[in-house]
Structures are given as C-alpha cells and as structure tokens.
C-alpha cells in the first residue's frame, strides 16, 4: 500500500498531446476515479502510472520511490484490464498464481495465497475452471483476484465494469468497494461512466483533452464544478443565462465569481402550477413540452423563451393533471444554484 503522486505529467503521441501537465495526488488507501470522455487521456494517464507508457516529462511517485523511469515489470502494481485479459490457456488458479510464480514464492505459499484470493472474491470452488467456463461477473472477480494477489502497492483498473450488464455492474461496484476497503489498497480506476465515478470514489479527477480539469471529492466536484464542461459531464445542468420572461427571478448566490455562469441541476428544480411564495428561491415560468414517466422518477422538458429546461423529480412530486402545453412555474433554492466561473 502506498500513496501515489503524479506531478506535471506531459505525454505526446506525435502532434497529439495526450497528457498536458497533469497533476493529481492519490492518498494511501483511497479509491480514485479518472473520469473523462473518450480521448480525454484518462487511459493514457492510468497506463503511465502503470508504466506501460513513459511520460515525456513530469514525475510519478509511488510511496517514497520515484518510478517515472521504472518499467511496468518493476513497479509492483496490480492491474485489471477492460476485457479482463485472463490467460485462456490456464485455469482460474493458475491465472491468479501467475504473478506469484513469477515472484517464486514457493509452491505451498502460492497455493495458500491463491486460496485466500479466491475466498476474497467468493470464487472458492472455481479454481480448476478455465476462464471460458465462467460468467462475465466471475471473470471479473478472477481478474481482480489476480491483480491483488501479489499485494501490489497500487491497484489500477481500466474501465473495470464496462463489460458487465447494468444489474451486475451495480453489484460489482459494491463488491469492488468492499474488497478495496478490506485490503486497504490505493486504487485508481478509469471510467467514462460519471455515475460509477461518483458512487465509488473518494476523489475524482476529471480530464478533458489531456488536461486535468478538476480533481476533488465527488460531492465537491458535483456541487462546485469549475466549468460548464464539468457541470454537464457530471450529471446534467440547465444553463440559466437566457432565462427571461414574466416572473423570471434568477437570484445570484453570494459567492458567485465575476463573469460566471449560473446553472441548476435538473433534480433541484420544483414544478408548480402557481407562483411559489417562499423566499430565497429563484423562479421562472416555462411551458411543458414533454413529460417522461420512468417508474419512481419522471423527467420533464420545459421551454422558456427558446431555452429547454430539464427537470427530474419523483413522479408524485409533479402536480397532477398537468398537460403538455401548460404554462408552469419552476423554482429552485438559491443555494442549489451552481455558479460556474469561466465559459
């Protein structure tokens, strides 16, 4: 177990700057997400930490050791790949034991640790199977067991859950978190799924075009996005600049930086048929365009003066008997208004 620190990493592939002066700290024992759209450099950053890619400049520290010139074989990391990369010619036990065999821990020690790892991922009875005999979720567990069995200093996960269907993915999120907590290993994972990043991690680093846009705890990043990209990427955000019309009263939070943009997340807006009377709220009127029922939750799209506003709320909190085309009131608390600096 060790803390990881990435300082001013830059990496170019030809004319493309895949990583541009990226800095992020990963404290010991935490669970960290690198989040970004495809091509943002998040996988490049993970592979640079792993040692498959050497950065052009900058430093990487694992524990007390600077490793930017150390190849992956000597970095003592555990890595789990997107498609799991299990060796198809070996049994589950041999897959897990591969790293132990390389380290020459001895037959009895090897057997004991394979057994422990199998227990940890709840696959005790499956050691003799071949990977192709396992389900997707089981393969994922084997890949995880294989990555941690050597007690690496860091666990790196490349889109670990993306190959699973949704129900299994939620199960595995909890499972992954449980195992990570149990062994207390510093874990960095790459994902393009913002919900996954918010659910799992202690800290999220958001990348775009090779730059680290924002890094911080999920709630902080979600509630105080540094720019519109981050606001829109982590969930959804209604931009309030063009809201106008009769009854439009957009209140500015006290802490808004100069030249900033106001936005509000869909789940913080309340729909009502008459003007709400409370203080300390922002209001505006809008016409209901569409209402989409999805079980417990419902999504409404409303239009104010050419701007679409999205509202997500519990279906029962939406006034009954409203129809498409109705003029409605929207309101949200001032403290839920996002104030975004820059563009």
């Amino acid at each position: 177990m060790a803390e990881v620190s990435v300082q001013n990493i830059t990496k170019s592939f030809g004319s493309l700057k895949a990583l541009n002066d990226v800095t992020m700290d990963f404290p010991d024992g935490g669970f960290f997400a690198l989040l970004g759209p495809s091509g943002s450099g998040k996988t490049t950053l993970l592979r640079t930490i792993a040692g498959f890619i050497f950065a052009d400049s900058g430093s990487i520290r694992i524990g007390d050791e600077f490793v930017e010139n150390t190849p992956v074989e000597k970095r003592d990391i555990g890595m789990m790949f997107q498609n799991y990369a299990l060796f198809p010619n070996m049994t589950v036990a041999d897959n897990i034991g591969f790293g132990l065999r390389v380290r020459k821990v001895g037959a009895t020690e090897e057997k004991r640790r394979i057994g422990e790892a199998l227990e940890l991922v709840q696959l005790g009875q499956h050691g003799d199977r071949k990977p192709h005999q396992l389900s997707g979720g089981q393969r994922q567990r084997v890949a995880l067991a294989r990555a941690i069995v050597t007690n690496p200093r860091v666990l790196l996960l490349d889109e670990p859950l993306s190959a699973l269907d949704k129900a299994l993915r939620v199960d595995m999120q909890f499972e992954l978190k449980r195992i990570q907590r149990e062994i207390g290993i510093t874990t960095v994972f790459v994902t393009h799924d913002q919900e996954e990043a918010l659910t799992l991690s202690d800290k999220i680093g958001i990348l775009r075009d090779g730059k680290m846009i924002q890094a911080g705890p999920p709630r902080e990043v979600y509630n105080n996005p540094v720019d519109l990209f981050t606001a829109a990427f982590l969930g959804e955000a209604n931009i309030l600049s063009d809201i106008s019309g009769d009854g439009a009263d957009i209140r500015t939070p006290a802490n808004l930086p100069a030249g900033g943009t106001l936005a509000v997340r869909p789940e913080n807006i309340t729909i009502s048929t008459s003007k709400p009377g409370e203080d300390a709220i922002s209001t505006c009127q809008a016409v209901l365009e569409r209402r989409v029922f999805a079980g417990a939750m419902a999504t409404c799209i409303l239009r104010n003066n050419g701007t679409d506003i999205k509202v997500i709320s519990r279906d029962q909190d939406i006034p009954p008997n409203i129809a498409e085309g109705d003029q409605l009131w929207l309101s949200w608390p001032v403290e839920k208004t996002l104030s975004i600096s820059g563009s």
Partner: protein
Amino acid sequence: MSTVLANQERLRIFGLLSPAYLWLTVAIFLPLSAMLYFSFLSEVPFGDAEWSHTTENYEAFFQTSTYAILLWKSIRLGLIVTLVSVLVGFPCAYVLAKVIKGRSREALFLLVILPFWSNSLVRIFSWAIVLRGNGVLEIGLNAVLPFEVDVNLMFSTPAIVIGLVHSYLPYIILTSYLALQAIDDNLIDAARSMSANKLTILWRIILPLSLPGLLAGAVLIFVPVVGSFMEPRILGGRVGTYFGTVIEDQFVAVYNWPLGAALSFILLAVVLLILAVASPVLRRAQT
C-alpha cells in the same frame, strides 16, 4: 412445413459442398484408388503386358533394409526441415504479428509469400547457382571477408535443407502469424503488470496460445518434405537419394509403377501413423 424448409436447407448445403467434394473425388480419390490397385499388381496393365495380383511390391519393402533406411532418412530430413523452418519462421511471424504495424507489415508479408510466386524448379536451380563452388555465395563471401573461403554446399544435405526450408517456410510463417495475431495484446500487458519477463511471457502465454498454428504449419511442412524428391535430386546429387526420389525413379526411370505405388502407400501409412501417434500429445499441448 418445417420438413420442407429442412429439405431446402439440406439441398442448399449439398449444393455448396458438392463441387469441392466432386473435385476431390475425381482429382484425388479416383487416381489414388487406381494407384492402390496398381500396387497389388505384378505389371502395369497397359498394352499386352502379362499381369497378376500380388503382394510382392509390399514384400519388397521388407526384404531389404535399403527402403527402411531411406524412409528413416526421409523422416529425419522432414524433422530437420520442419525444425529449421519453425526456428526461422516463428520469430518472423511474431514480429509481423505483434511488433510491426501498418503498411510496412503488408510489404514484409509480400516478401514472405514471394517463394509461392516463383516456379519451384526455377527456385531450386537458382539455389544451385548460389550454392555451388565458385557460386554466388562463395564469391559474395570472399568479396566481404578478409580471408579466402571455400564454400561449396552443392550436392550436400545442407543444400537440400536450405532449398526445402526456402520452399516451405511461408507455411509456418502464415499459420503462426494467424495464431499469434489472435492473441490479445492485453494478455501480454497483463503478464507484464505481474512482473513477468519476456521469456516467461513467451513460454507460458505466447507459445501455448500460438501452438495450434505452429503445429498446423509444422504438419504442412513435415508431410510433403518426407516425400520430396525434386530438391534432394537437384541440390543433393549423389547424397540426395531419399525415399521420395526412389519412388520417383520407379515412375519415371525404371517404369515399375506397381513398386512405386506400393512405396507411396507405405510412405502414406507411415506419415499417418506418425501423426496419429503424435496427435494425443499435440492435442494435450493445445488445451
């Protein structure tokens, strides 16, 4: 209704399969059966020749040790050529499949298949020009080296091996290439992340996973080389007497077709036996 569909499906399958099987029947099975029949005759039943049924041709193989010795010599040649081809071809296939990307790969691939494009006889005679005393190889070496060397590989076993490897190398490269290309690069990365060195990765991951292709290529080389006659005759001269050349002699020189046919079937039987004995080992290696 479903039986009509099933019948249509069966008809379609039959239609797709029959051209190939018809061709194989006419082009291989019929001549081969004729040969099998000949091998049990005393004389070729052409013209006025007196002929009778006999097993003498097969007995001839066992009456003297010459044939068995030559057969063993041919099998050994097959093993050597296969081994050299594997040692030369597998690394080449690895680089083509895993190291080189993009357009230069296509160009290099073309060079690999080039032997297929030239006439085999032309190819062998070109080697004769290279390998003979005062040939291209000797002149070339003497031009580079500071001291005089005599290189006359012509009419020797190495010459035969060189010629055969040249002819059959593309097989092992192509089959290995296909097998190697199917190996997910992430497997290699995964092994590296577990601190495995290159040798371990080769031995425990790349070799086992590419073994089916490697073995297919080896069989494709071994079988024809055991029966080869052109390379041994032209490049081997006096030392180039092999089981294949003896069979050829029976057909084109001695005109003893029945003996030639019998020897061919003995060769076929021995090769099949070798593959049958080896197959459980090969199958285990693949799983």
